[in-house]
């Protein structure tokens, strides 16, 4: 299903395809008409995608077909060995992780995992982790430290799960612990926001030396819908909330919250996952290269300095 603002583009694309088909089968020369239509399509695309509102970006960040953590791991890395469980309570499918190889280097990876269909989304709780998911992530951070492997985290969650079981098992406690654990890593740590960066549940695996974000991903303290429900008393005002929250990649770059924007192919990552993966890989390797010369203590201090400086106030 196309997004609302994608519909005119899809309609025009369908029309062009239909005309091309007719031209081919009938032998009628429609090259003039097709040329005009293709120009209009290009214009329509640039009008739509060069001026995306923040709310439209949020929709792109949630679009079905957008690369998920497992897609990215599969596309960028080899020898992926998935590791499961928190060794305390259970396995949380909303968070995936394990060992893998990136351009010959062995790394530890973790990420929120959205389902690629409804059935998988239910299994993965729509990428909303319980405390077990964060404990699994912390276990993987331990592993990265012990074996001196770079730690790579992929962020894509609407937020940590707000439910009774999660509260009973200390959701707030594990998020705080995971933030602290990741901050203490003595290896290079990169966090990449792939789609949704929903509040504390995202930040729990977001304490990287470098924080990267895909062009249309968002990252904020609250989702636009929840913010609208509280401040406007109407979740339907989400578009206004998205604007006010300044949650887009360019906003976050100017505030110093992210270090690098990873470009998405025209129309968004879901339109061309392969090109998206190539861009992620390039950015990830460049960020890792920047950290290559830093020793374990320096990596810790680099992360401390990075987050210490965030905030705006008057003296």
């Amino acid at each position: 299903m196309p997004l609302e603002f994608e519909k005119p583009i899809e309609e025009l694309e369908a029309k062009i395809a239909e005309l091309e088909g007719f031209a081919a089968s009938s032998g009628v020369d429609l090259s003039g008409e097709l040329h005009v239509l293709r120009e209009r399509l290009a214009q329509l695309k640039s009008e739509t995608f060069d001026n995306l509102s923040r709310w439209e970006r949020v929709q792109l960040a949630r679009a079905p077909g957008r690369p998920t953590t497992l897609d990215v791991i599969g596309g960028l890395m080899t020898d992926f060995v998935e590791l499961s469980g928190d060794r305390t309570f259970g396995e949380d499918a909303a968070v995936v992780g394990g060992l893998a190889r990136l351009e010959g280097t062995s790394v530890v990876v973790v990420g929120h995992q959205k389902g690629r269909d409804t059935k998988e989304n239910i299994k993965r709780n729509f990428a909303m982790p319980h405390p077990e998911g964060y404990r699994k992530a912390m276990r993987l951070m331990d592993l990265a430290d012990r074996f001196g492997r770079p730690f790579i985290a992929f962020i894509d969650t609407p937020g940590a799960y707000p439910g009774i079981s999660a509260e009973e098992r200390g959701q707030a406690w594990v998020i705080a612990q995971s933030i602290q654990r990741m901050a203490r890593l003595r290896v290079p740590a990169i966090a990449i926001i792939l789609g949704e960066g929903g509040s504390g549940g995202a930040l729990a695996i977001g304490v990287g030396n470098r924080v990267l974000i895909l062009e249309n991903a968002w990252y904020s303290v609250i989702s636009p819908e929840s913010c609208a429900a509280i401040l406007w008393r109407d979740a339907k005002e989400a578009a206004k909330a998205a604007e006010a929250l300044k949650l887009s990649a360019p906003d976050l770059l100017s505030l110093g919250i992210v270090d690098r924007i990873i470009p998405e192919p025209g129309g968004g990552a879901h339109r061309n996952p392969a090109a998206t993966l190539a861009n992620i890989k390039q950015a990830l390797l460049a960020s890792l290269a920047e950290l290559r010369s830093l020793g374990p203590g320096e990596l810790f201090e680099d992360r401390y300095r990075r987050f210490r400086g965030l905030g705006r106030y008057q003296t």
Partner: protein
Amino acid sequence: MALERLFRRRRAQGEARDIPELWVKCPKCDAQIYKKDLETNLHVCPKCGHHLRLSADKRIEMLADAGTFEQITGLKPADPLGFVDTEPYPKRLERYQKEAGRPDAIVGGRCTIGGVESVLLVMDYAFAGGSMGSVVGEEITRGIELAAQENRAVVIVSVSGGARMQEAALSLMQMAKTTLALDRLWAQKLPYVSILTDPTTGGVTASFAAIADVILAEPGALIGFAGPRVIKQTIRQDLPEGFQRSEFLLKHGMVDQVVDRRQLKETVAMVLKLLHPRTVNHAG
């Protein structure tokens, strides 16, 4: 007859004048409490033990040794996002500042607690529901760093509806900043006691409030990650009795003790004396 009428009238006037000023109704047991009694009892209902909300200034008075508190906070909030919802953020800030009588939702300073050199940081619910934006995050961080420099213990009293929406991702980053700062303290083996009061939720719980050496909670306080309303909407069920209250958290292993406010200072002082490196070799 005339005398009786006079009496009646005076009593009626007396009630109208006296009740709102001198008497407070306990929200839990409905008892009418003489306001002075409530104050000397640290805003704990003498009838049922319910803990009413205590102002940040009263908290300092209660926890810091008399005459030792020296304020270190005073940063003012900015409007980095130009945030406007139904009104502009600076307008809201002005109103909160007037209501709370301070620039943002925190006050803190150097003091001694039971004789132990400390930094005491207290959040203020009267300012925007104790929400955490850049100022709260920066003051907490500076307080912790100061304690690390001067070999002081840290005591933080949390009361917060969570991170402040009007500073969006910058508020979120305060969770990381404050949590990272605690490493400076731990590296020097200086104790940190976190006191959770009603309510402590969201980004404050999920950062510095939850990773202390010792976590104490006041009785009956609402403490959690997600607020009860959000959880109810998500699961579409009624929440169990006592859910997310201090006693529930104690039962689930998340806090060390639920401490009556009237014993809080004594408990905090005892912990600090037991843990602070400078007091290790002292008797008593």
